[in-house]
């Protein structure tokens, strides 16, 4: 017994046991089950039968599902690009020599740590058609004459939900990139400056290349979170108006849980996997480059 406990292979497996058990039962198995459900006609309270790719065929012809794919891609691309641009800008600002730097950094992250469902309620009220404080301010400034129907019009709703998503995501991107910026040695900037590099050149040829690996990872996470976003849309619009803001995640919830068609919902969720894999592969190559840049192996 004692020798067994000193055998690192045995002990290693023993130590892995609690984590592995939980993850196998509640992560790996459901991942497989979800894929399988996508090929069945399972309903709530009724086990499904294998129906091949009927669900996927049906969804491919379903205008709402197609709209949700468009919405998801639009939402992800626009929100991610803006989160990256604004996040990088904020990180560069916070990286300057500021008084109360750590205080600013702490405050900036607040939108990210507060439960999204709860901050989404604040946005819901800010976007209210009758009492929106944004409309009120714009009217007072004389910029608009009628209150904006933020969540009632398809394109307004899309852009409003994207704005709320950006609000929540910028702090994450900014703080992670700031951590990356702080690892860049100031002597590199000094050397570049002595060679006569302009601020833009120093950003373009010193900051950006050294930051690329962490940008790749941070943006992969950001894209992953955005692509599979659920709560913000659920709270703000529930997919409306006219399904204009339904993302694949919210639509699969609606079809599977209130709608009861587990199979169809699972098929929708499964359809997100190829996109997620693409994002993960992107991250993988980002990481490879990082090792190479640090002079590491592999």
């Amino acid at each position: 017994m004692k020798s067994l406990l000193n055998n690192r292979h045995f002990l290693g497996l023993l130590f892995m046991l609690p984590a592995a058990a939980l993850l196998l039962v509640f992560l790996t198995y459901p991942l497989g089950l979800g894929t399988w459900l996508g090929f069945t006609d399972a309903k709530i309270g009724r086990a499904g039968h294998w129906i091949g790719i009927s669900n996927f065929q049906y969804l491919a012809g379903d205008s709402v599902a197609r709209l949700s794919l468009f919405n998801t891609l639009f939402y992800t691309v626009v929100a991610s690009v803006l989160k990256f641009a604004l996040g990088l800008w904020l990180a560069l600002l916070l990286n300057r020599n500021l008084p109360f730097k750590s205080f600013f950094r702490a405050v900036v992250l607040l939108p990210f740590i507060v439960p999204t469902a709860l901050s989404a309620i604040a946005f819901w009220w800010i976007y209210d058609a009758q009492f929106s404080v944004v409309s009120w301010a714009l009217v007072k400034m004389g910029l608009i004459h009628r209150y904006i129907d933020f969540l009632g019009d398809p394109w307004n709703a899309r852009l409003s939900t994207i704005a709320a998503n950006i609000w929540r995501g910028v702090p994450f991107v900014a703080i992670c990139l700031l951590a990356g910026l702080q690892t860049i040695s100031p002597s590199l900037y000094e050397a570049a400056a002595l060679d006569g590099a302009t601020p833009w050149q120093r950003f373009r040829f010193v900051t950006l290349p050294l930051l690329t690996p962490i940008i790749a990872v941070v943006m992969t996470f950001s894209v992953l979170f955005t692509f599979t976003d659920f709560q913000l849309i659920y709270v703000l619009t529930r997919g409306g108006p006219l399904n204009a803001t339904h993302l694949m995640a919210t639509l699969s919830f609606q079809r599977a849980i209130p709608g009861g068609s587990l199979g169809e919902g699972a098929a929708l969720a499964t359809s997100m996997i190829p996109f997620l894999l693409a994002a993960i592969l992107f991250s993988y190559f980002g990481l490879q480059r990082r090792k190479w840049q640090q002079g590491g192996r592999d």
Partner: protein
Amino acid sequence: MGTATERREEAVSHEGMSYLDSIPRRVATTYLPLAVFLFVLLFPFYWMVMTSIKSNAELISREGNPFWVIAPTLEHFRHLIMDTDYPSWMWNTVVVSVVSTFTSLAASVFAAYAIERLRFRGSKQVGLAIFLAYLVPPSILFIPLAAIVFKLGLFDTRWALILTYPTFLIPFCTWLLMGYFRSIPFELEECALIDGATRWQILVKIILPLAVPGLISAGIFAFTLSWNEFIYALTFISSSEVKTVPIAVVTELVEGDVYHWGPLMAGALLGSLPVAVMYSFFVEYYVSGMTGAVKE
């Protein structure tokens, strides 16, 4: 323009040497944009507070300035605590978050130590699998998980959440702790092994005390993740008295088409406070947890 001194001054102004900038320039390029960022990022919180302490009459009044409150009232908070299940929602959230955080942390300590230090056969692959598990979003798991939870008879109980939250907490905590364990010198363990310590003693007496910052980081981050969790709680819970705060505020406080903005905001504010307070005490740990997981 163009003299050597000027160019040098401009050159060193980047990053840590920005104190050489002229004041107006600093205001225009640093303070002004920063102020705009802070205003936008913090305004929703200000608005939450303002709305939660306004009386109903003041909320729908078109007179005066909506940015300020004339007669602050705690009526909405009283209503939440006395007339709704808010205290039990809060309690549920605390129980679920604390239990799932500690369970995940314990499982992750063992897993990370095994992967990083015992280096058993296949530990590299397991490490990679943990990272991949970290990337699996709840949005594609909730449907099959709902079926499993139902089959296990856990539907509409706190156990449904306590057992499913580790699916995103364990990968995250393990990944983070692996990084921390890696930074502890091997020599310490070798000395202890020579002195006859068992692996268990090494883990408890040497590794864990040295990894306390990592444990706090992982714990804080895991706690906020479980506090903020939404889709599982929405899917697996249906009775009001078992709901967590984020779900309950969205589903129980919204009745029909009449939105009671005061109680809604008060509920959102109260539900955000615990994580915000926790965060304010452990900012550094939280940030290092968040960035550590991304950087490793």
